[in-house]
């Protein structure tokens, strides 16, 4: 067994595709419509935990995304 698929360690600025799929699946299971889940997973700055907590408290997914949308001027890590 080898540790890495690639010779170097992962660049954390880019979430691997499988993590994006995982995040999408969790959002859909949390009640997010697929198109909205796609919007969220396209931006790794979204905090899924906070989004799903808002939805748990009765907030609609659309409003949760508006509330927690990353600031436009923020630079992605």
């Amino acid at each position, binding site marked *: 067994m080898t540790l890495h698929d690639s010779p170097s360690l992962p660049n954390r600025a880019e979430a*691997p595709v499988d993590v994006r799929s995982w995040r999408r699946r969790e959002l859909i299971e949390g009640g997010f419509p697929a198109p909205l889940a796609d919007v969220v997973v396209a931006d790794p700055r979204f*905090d*899924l*935990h906070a989004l799903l907590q808002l939805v748990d408290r009765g907030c609609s997914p659309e409003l949760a995304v508006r509330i927690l949308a990353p600031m436009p001027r923020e630079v992605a890590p």
Partner: protein
Amino acid sequence: MTTVNPTTPEVVPPPSDDSWLTDLADHGPDGQEALRRLHELLLRATRHQVWRLRDLLPGAGAGDLEDLAQQAAGDAMVAVLRQLGTFEGRSRFTTWAYKFGVLHAGVAVRRQAWRHREVSLPDTLVVVDGAPGPEEHSEAAQLARALQAAIASELTPHQRRVVLALLVEQVPIDVLADRLGSTRNALYKTLHDARRRLRSALSESGHLEPRPNRSTP
């Protein structure tokens, strides 16, 4: 036994905490030197911790472990410099900083160990042995069933999935926080709230002794 004369010219006293703080804030050569020394210290911490946790990475070679240690030392360096203002002098500066190295190395190793593993967020607690057991186990079986019911009824859906992932599936909290794009503190808070709800439900159903409310003013 030999003793070292503190006035011996070869003996260089370690920098004091004050000089660490002053030098790290310096933009000149003293600052560069302090940064180099800090990185050296953090690298010692991360190498030590990565080596200690190497069993979590069975396929990792020496080069991989060194990469992880270097990466963690870099992360720890950023964290130390960001939190420099919070250093209160309750321990030596080097002790305080060393802990950042240990923490970041642990996070890096666990993240790497879980990188290609499925992180399961189950929705239901499955009690493996739900059948009535011998007399001496019946109380434990009842408690398990009560806990299963409380998890299903007392927790919100996301709370339930986080609790089961962390407590049953044993997903490391920093791995889950990373996947969710959240923080460990946010997950700790969720865990704390969920535990309080579960404890309250189990107390009400007579399965746990009610705990005195320590937060009563």
